[in-house]
């Protein structure tokens, strides 16, 4: 439910992967195949000469170096900033406010429900269950919808998944009616260290 830019991740990873694979293959061929290396030398000499000419053309009078290097530095800075942004947006989207509404009539003002409300409600409702080891509930902001809930539970070894899912879903339906917000809900039945350490579920 987080807002990780999945498509961006895939596209950049694929492009970078293709580039580095090509670079690695090129290096290996240079080291191993003499005829390929000879071909590369011919091409590289021409490209190198063209680049040197370009550098000379872009050097202003009285300056030591070409202004192309400044352009390159700017591109690098932009690239670094983009990479920092890319890292920062991974896994974003958790919210502390479950719902917020502006009231016009009566006492005017904004009513805010902290995300602790649905989280604590669900946790308290599930606390007594013997077939769950841990319960964690988080709220996520979802574009064009009410805030979403992610319910992660670790069932005891051997517990029946469908029954747990149905019970949690019916709790969620009850809570929708009380809180007046019905965003998307994800129920995740997970394994973890706590499940393996705790005793198994008895047959019911």
């Amino acid at each position, binding site marked *: 439910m987080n807002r990780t830019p999945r498509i961006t991740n895939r596209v*950049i990873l694929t492009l970078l992967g293709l580039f580095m694979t090509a*670079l690695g293959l090129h290096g290996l061929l240079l080291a191993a195949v003499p005829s390929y290396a000879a071909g590369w030398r011919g091409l590289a000499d021409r490209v190198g000469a063209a680049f040197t000419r370009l550098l000379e053309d872009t050097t202003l009078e009285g300056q030591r*170096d070409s202004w192309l290097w400044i352009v390159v*530095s700017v591109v690098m800075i932009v690239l670094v900033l983009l990479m920092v942004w890319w890292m920062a947006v991974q896994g974003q989207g958790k919210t502390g406010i479950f719902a917020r509404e502006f009231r016009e009539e009566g006492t005017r003002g904004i009513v805010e429900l902290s995300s602790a409300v649905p989280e604590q409600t669900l946790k308290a409702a599930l606390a007594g269950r013997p077939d769950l080891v841990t319960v964690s509930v988080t709220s996520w902001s979802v574009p064009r919808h009410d805030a979403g809930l992610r319910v992660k539970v670790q069932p005891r070894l051997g517990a029946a*998944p469908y029954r747990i*899912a149905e019970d949690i879903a019916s709790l969620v339906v009850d809570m929708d009616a009380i809180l007046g917000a019905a965003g998307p809900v994800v129920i995740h039945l997970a394994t973890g260290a706590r499940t393996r350490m705790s005793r198994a579920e008895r047959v019911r």
Partner: protein
Amino acid sequence: MSDDDRRKLQSHELHSARSTAAVIAALLVTAVCLYFMFEAAMKSLGQDVWIRSPGEWGTWLTGLPDSADPLVLAAGSLVVLALGLFFLLHGILPGRRARHAIPQERAIVVVDDGVLASTLARRARTQAGVTPEQVVVIVTRNHVSVQLRPTSGIGIDAAAVHAAVEDEIRTNHIEPAPAVKVHVAETGVVGQ
């Protein structure tokens, strides 16, 4: 929520977002950029460059393979190739998580395969009448493999176990329903 949104959210839960690979790639690109900026800055300040200035790197590149030790070049290329394949495969493979979905009206429900395995193991164990240590269940996307070690002298009805495990998958509405394979070991263990 529309069906489209539901499907999207469910597929997000069942597939990896590739965050780890993305962060590794971002760090790598940042490091390379910062290195070249550092060298360029050293050069423009009139200081000695650290390894080579960007221009000298260009000359070095066109001078390959004579400008580098062939062994170092090959080893470096292998590292770059391996990293490239790592990123490429993370970019194009579906990246399915070891999870199954359970259809539910109000919520999107996903189950880790480990949870499912323990449920199926309990059912197989009660059907076969053996202890938990005698059952191993492995769940993958399309297959469930149940391995049983019978108690010495007491046979196991593999067909009944098969039917029980399939029934458990059906009653839990697992999607997509995996095919069940039961294997009873030739040798038994001393029962408890």
